[in-house]
């Protein structure tokens, strides 16, 4: 009896010990992933989508070519076996499928699988017709030469996924839906320039602008222009869009024209789509089902594509290079990077953020004590080692850039260089009278000694703090002392006028963040540096010129741009404005960010995209 209990006790203790040791051993072994493929039993093969009907299941073994098993081949030619489920992973989850009420990119992309605009941008920033038969231009008479209107021709015979006809009325309705302020469309700005949308005939629609518009493709194009079905949303104009029960249901299950329709949607978790039999090109759609799963973090999303191959496509892998590169190195996936996600830049404060000024702090009429000196701004730009930041921190997710406007390619200025030159930077400061005292330069201005000590703020993000550290040491070399500050992103980027730490108030000397144009026409983006856009207490700090830069020369160029309708001349003007901003040191561009998506090697079709959804052409993807 006693010996029995002893044995039992021992084995119990041993079992516990074992439980503790196994993970430790496994973790050690885990460092050589190459050593264990033999131990991975068939369980390693994720049995894709057990809910799908077995006939449609191609059990796509990623390495095996489509040589085997003609058992389930339906009517399609034997080239590639169609069907199966396309699995997409976002680290943010889709919460609504009505793109006009979206709260994030994930919502636009979730809607993209169902809904379509008239045209979308491809990876080369060119327009591709979707519901439209062709892209209207001045040459084919679609765009009025005076810029007052644009006329779109639709593809004939378009149908909604419920079988009803897609008509011009649906386009008119979508405009009316978002033009109503109470609907509170996220996409309202692209409908604002519209004076009227009218039906010419069954497949022709004419959009008239409130004033001559240099960008005829602003409305009904790209993610902001997806068209809703009038029949479904008719009663949802105004506040009812969010409060009426039928409209709430419609927002979560819109009827669309794209290759799939909704099968199941769990907001904040997963969307499953199934084939739309009424799609105009249904025969050429490869996948039977599409799944967009959301949540988790970007690093494990990358692993799910590149290491476990549980999903086919993962979006927006914003991960430091040190983490991302080993994952991509597995060789099972392709990163898709290109275009631009925005330019990471340092904004220079032209107003004085000195707390001693009280209410007048950072107001446009308070000039900055030393950043108004062009020598200091240029010296800062010269001293920064963009190459080191790009190579050590961004890796495949960013390239050094000297321009603040990099996309589309036609407006990316070829004129500027921004090689690091510490000696030139020192000389600039020296010549401007900034003398080194100890490790910091200073100068007598109006009887006061001004020292080059700058505060440098940005949002909390490991990448940005590492960048701050590099810049701090770069500037220390030329005698500028940097005090870094990091602010929670939800505060820094909020427009909260009551919070002192927003980027609009800019209570610091330098600040860093990413921004870029939202459409191929740069006018809206370039507007952010004109004098009238300067943020101040008078306008609740909600204007976009946060650096309080004001240059009559730049304003004159902007006035010219506003009036110019010729695309070529507009591009020239835009490049001129970019060059002026950068050479004047209004802004210090650092990195062109190209946040990559990743796909498994077998998946064909995904491209990077600057001005449209990452899954803009999803109907043509195959495996």
């Amino acid at each position, binding site marked *: 009896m006693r010996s029995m209990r002893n044995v039992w006790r021992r084995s119990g203790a041993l079992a516990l010990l074992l439980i503790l040791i196994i993970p430790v051993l496994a*973790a050690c072994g885990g460092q050589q992933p190459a050593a264990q493929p033999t131990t991975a039993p068939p*369980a390693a093969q994720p049995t894709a989508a*057990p809910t799908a009907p077995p006939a449609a299941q191609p059990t796509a073994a990623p390495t095996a070519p489509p040589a085997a098993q003609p058992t389930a081949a339906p009517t399609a030619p034997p080239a590639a076996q169609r069907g199966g489920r396309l699995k997409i992973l976002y680290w*943010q989850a889709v919460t609504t499928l009505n793109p006009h009420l979206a709260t994030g990119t994930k919502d636009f992309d979730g809607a993209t699988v169902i809904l379509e605009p008239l045209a979308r941008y491809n990876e080369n920033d060119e327009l591709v017709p979707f519901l439209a038969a062709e892209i209207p231009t001045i040459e084919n008479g679609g765009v009025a030469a005076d810029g007052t209107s644009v006329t779109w021709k639709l593809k004939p015979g378009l149908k909604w996924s419920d079988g009803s006809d897609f008509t011009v009325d649906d386009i008119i309705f979508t405009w009316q839906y978002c033009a109503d302020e109470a609907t509170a469309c996220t996409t309202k700005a692209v409908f604002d320039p519209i004076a009227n949308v009218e039906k010419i005939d069954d497949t022709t629609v004419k959009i008239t602008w409130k004033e001559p518009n240099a960008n005829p493709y602003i409305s009904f194009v790209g993610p902001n222009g997806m068209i809703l079905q009038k029949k479904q949303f008719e009663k949802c104009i105004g506040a009812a869009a969010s409060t009426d029960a039928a409209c709430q249901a419609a927002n979560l299950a819109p009827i669309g024209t794209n290759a799939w329709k909704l099968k199941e949607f769990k907001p*904040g978790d997963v969307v499953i789509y199934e084939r739309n039999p009424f799609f105009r090109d249904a025969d050429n759609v490869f996948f039977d089902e599409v799944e967009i799963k959301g*949540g988790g973090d970007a690093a*494990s999303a990358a692993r799910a594509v590149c290491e476990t191959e549980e999903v086919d496509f993962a979006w927006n892998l914003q991960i430091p290079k040190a983490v991302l590169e080993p994952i991509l190195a597995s060789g099972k996936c392709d990163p898709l990077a290109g275009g631009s996600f925005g330019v990471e830049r340092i904004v220079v404060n032209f107003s004085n953020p000195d707390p001693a000024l009280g209410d007048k702090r950072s107001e446009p009429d308070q000039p900055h004590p030393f950043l108004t000196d062009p020598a200091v701004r240029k010296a800062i730009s010269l001293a920064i080692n963009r190459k080191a930041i790009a190579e050590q921190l961004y890796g495949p997710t960013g390239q050094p850039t000297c321009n603040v406007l990099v996309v589309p390619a036609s407006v990316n200025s070829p004129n500027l260089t921004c090689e690091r030159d510490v000696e030139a930077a020192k000389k600039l400061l020296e010549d401007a009278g900034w003398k080194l005292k100890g490790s910091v330069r200073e100068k007598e201005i109006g009887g006061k000694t001004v020292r080059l000590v700058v505060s440098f703020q940005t949002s909390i993000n490991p990448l940005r703090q590492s960048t701050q550290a590099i810049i701090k040491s770069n500037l220390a070399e030329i005698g500028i002392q940097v005090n870094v500050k990091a602010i929670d992103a939800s505060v820094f*980027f909020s427009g909260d006028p009551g919070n002192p730490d927003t980027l609009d108030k800019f209570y610091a000397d330098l600040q860093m963040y990413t921004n870029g144009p939202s*459409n191929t026409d740069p006018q*809206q983006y370039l507007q952010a540096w004109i004098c009238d856009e300067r943020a101040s207490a008078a306008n609740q700090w909600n204007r976009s010129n946060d650096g309080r830069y004001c240059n009559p020369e730049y304003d004159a160029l902007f006035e010219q741009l506003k009036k110019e309708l010729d695309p070529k001349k507009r591009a020239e003007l835009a490049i001129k404005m970019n060059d002026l901003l950068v050479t004047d040191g209004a802004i210090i561009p650092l990195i062109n960010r190209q946040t990559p998506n990743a796909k498994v090697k077998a998946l064909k079709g995904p491209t990077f995209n600057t001005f449209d959804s990452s899954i803009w052409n999803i109907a043509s993807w195959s495996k």
Partner: protein
Amino acid sequence: MAQYVLRRVLIAVPTLLIISFVIFAILALAPGDPLAQFALNPAIPESTRELIRIQFGLDQPWYVRYVKWLTALARGDWGFSFGTRGPVIDLIWQRLPQTLIVVGTAYLIAVLIAIPIGVISAVKQYSLFDQVATFAAFIGFSVPSFFTGLALMLVFAINLKWFPIVYNSTLNLAGWDGIVEQIRQMALPVTVLVVQQTAALTRFMRSSMLDNLPLDYVRTARAKGLADRMVIIRHVLRNSMIPVVTLIALGIPTIFAGAIITENLFRVNGIGQLLITSIQNSDTPVVMAITFIFACLTVLFNLIADILYGVLDPRVRYS
């Protein structure tokens, strides 16, 4: 007894009101904006965001919003989520099953493991078993779940490929395959939670047993000639369970709240994940609903624990 319960329920009402007020005030005063993601998007200018804020009622002062929220709640309306523009309560009902199944299973397993380990550890104090169990408990206490979770994921999902890392909430559980798949995808998150919860319960069980073991009634039982096993199970364990049962009852509401970190890590679409994403997106109605339901459950289970205490321990009298 009935009078005691009634009094407790009446006290609960103002308590809950104060709780809801404090949570609302904190949320309202914290910075954030449901459209913060679009802060720099020139296609969504500040004027558009302002319109949306008005539509959401965020232009009003927070105390006005609180009164509105409370009166709507009195009519049974939890409001609509800023993210889905759909009813909040639908979201919660959608999330509850996954949380109950994952966090609930973990809690159950933790209780089933912790009690025997705690008992043996106490009876065989300072034995090898006790040392190992104590060591394990301290690991469970001190290693945060995001670390255990990531380590398990790296080893068992990525290197060994035994388990998936993407939780699939749309499995068809009617078939055997679906059930196996469900167990596979639950394995890692449940393990992470069990490690944590077992640690606390084991220590509690052990100390409660140790409190009882040297008492006179134990000696009396032994003196009667009862077998060692009988003394432990019939007498010591029963009495030691009293505080433990209270602890377990108080832990039940936390099942509802889900496991924020673990759920997020493994992409389990539970309440915890809903809560954290709603906080990040400043989706106030959802955050309010979850925290308030959690507060109600905590108050309720506090009461249940107190009543259970009286049932289990005849020395406790309610007056």
